[in-house]
């Protein structure tokens, strides 16, 4: 059964230095509040997994939380580069980070395989791409029935996954709606999971085949109102495209970034 914790306590308990962490959300429902809590608690040496490391990982990397990033598309969607990620990769500021890169198909299948308890994902991929030459975690196997050569990648099985969702009921069952990305897979694939939600309700009011994650498949639930901003929560609030565009200027410069982090994360409280 999921435990209701404050975001502070959930992150303190489940995100250990050195852990492998997946914070998912495909443009929608990105767990920004949780990411900021990880920064505030000065977690270090994390291996960060995410299909689309956008500005939440840029912030965490700039804050020095990461030692490695596993991803398939790293950018500020619709805007441009992630300057903090590039600064870390290219110049080692504030610390050197290692990257391991995949395609979306590979990572989506790797999350699926992780949720399915398998050691690897098999798919038709990476044909003619040079990514296998720079990622030794991409292998090829032969179909025993047809002889076709198929790609294989290790499944994703994080120590902890963190997602944001619309709401939970009082038993801790979680409803995710709209663009659901790989969030359910991330939770099911992980040893532990934290779900931040907009609100706790008496009844999820979910239709029969809704994306509901049962309480007993989640470690902790923390209320984080507007916890996905500047990304959005379907049915609650829209995306701040404005902030995504502003981020480019903030992240370009180390000092501007550091000041922003102080003002908006370190000195912005968070929950007790």
């Amino acid at each position, binding site marked *: 059964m999921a435990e209701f914790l404050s975001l502070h306590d959930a992150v303190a308990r489940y995100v250990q230095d050195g852990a492998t962490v997946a914070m998912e959300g*495909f*443009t*929608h429902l990105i767990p920004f509040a949780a990411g900021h809590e990880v920064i505030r608690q000065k977690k270090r040496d994390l291996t960060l997994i995410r*299909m*689309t490391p956008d500005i939440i990982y840029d912030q965490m990397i700039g804050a020095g939380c990461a030692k490695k990033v596993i*991803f*398939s*598309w*790293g*950018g500020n*969607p*619709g*805007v441009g*580069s992630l300057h903090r*990620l*590039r600064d870390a*990769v*290219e110049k080692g500021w504030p610390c050197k980070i290692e990257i391991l*890169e*995949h*395609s*979306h*198909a590979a990572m*989506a*299948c790797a*999350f*699926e395989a992780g949720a399915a308890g398998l050691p690897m994902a098999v*798919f*038709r*991929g*990476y*044909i*003619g*791409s*040079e*990514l296998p030459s*720079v990622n030794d975690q991409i292998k090829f196997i032969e179909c025993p029935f047809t002889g*076709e050569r198929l790609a294989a990648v290790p499944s994703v099985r994080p120590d902890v996954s963190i997602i944001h969702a619309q709401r939970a009921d009082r038993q801790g069952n979680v409803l995710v709606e*709209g*663009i*659901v*990305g*790989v969030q*359910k*897979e991330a939770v099911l694939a992980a040893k532990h999971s934290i779900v931040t939600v907009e609100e706790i309700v008496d009844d999820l009011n979910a239709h029969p085949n809704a*994306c509901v994650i049962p309480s007993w498949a989640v470690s902790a639930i923390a209320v984080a109102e507007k916890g996905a901003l500047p990304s*959005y929560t*379907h049915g609650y609030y*829209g*995306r*701040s*495209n*404005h902030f*995504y565009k502003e981020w480019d200027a903030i992240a370009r410069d180390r000092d501007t970034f550091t000041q922003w982090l102080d003002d908006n994360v370190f000195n912005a409280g968070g929950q007790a």
Partner: protein
Amino acid sequence: MSLEYTSSEMMSVTAARALENGMTCFVGIGLPSEAANLARLTHAPDVVLIYESGTLQTKPDILPLSIGDGELCESALTTVAVPEMFRYWLQGGKVDVGFLGTAQIDRFANLNTTLIGDYKAPKVRLPGGGGAPEIATNAGEVFITLKHSKRAFVKDVDFVTTLGFGRDGKGRNNVPNIGKGPTRVITDLCVMKPDPETKELVVVSLHPGVSREDVIEATGWEIRFAEQLESTPEPSENELMILRELKARTERAHADA
């Protein structure tokens, strides 16, 4: 009828026209998304647009800034999980056309969105593969659209993120269960198609007012021209109006958000 239009508008309209009504199109963000939605709002009302965020058959009223904008989900027939999108819909063979942009493209239409320079010490780190590597091989065919420049059109890409026809043009030969690959490249200057034999990109159509020299100047290899070089039809008044309205709506909406 002589209309005023920009080379960007010419590119978008030409790219849009490449899509036929009823086609199923896996849409990349940016220029492909603009072209695909223009097609849907003009000659191809039943074109089916799919975005990798899991939104199936979506009809956004404004262009999405990101691949997962709420608008895409709200106007979709249904929204599936991302693993399902890549497994059932793309790999499952339900996509006729993958519509891609890129940072670099070479003469065999290989795409690079990984980095400029050397992998271990990149000059410029780009976003990475995203959906492109498997869109390019699992879709029935691939359309590519980007602005023409010597930086973008290089003889050999620094890194093959996504297969066009391989570094020797033979990358799809004898590979089972693979799509036709890039069948056309639409730029702000011209339309290119792969040579049926060698798979090297050849200019088949020049946009109005563009000279061969303009294209040669903007291409990083000795670009060839088709014997029957055509002139790309101009945008119609209706296409330009709809494109401009779409962009204006989009700008207003994004300014508000």
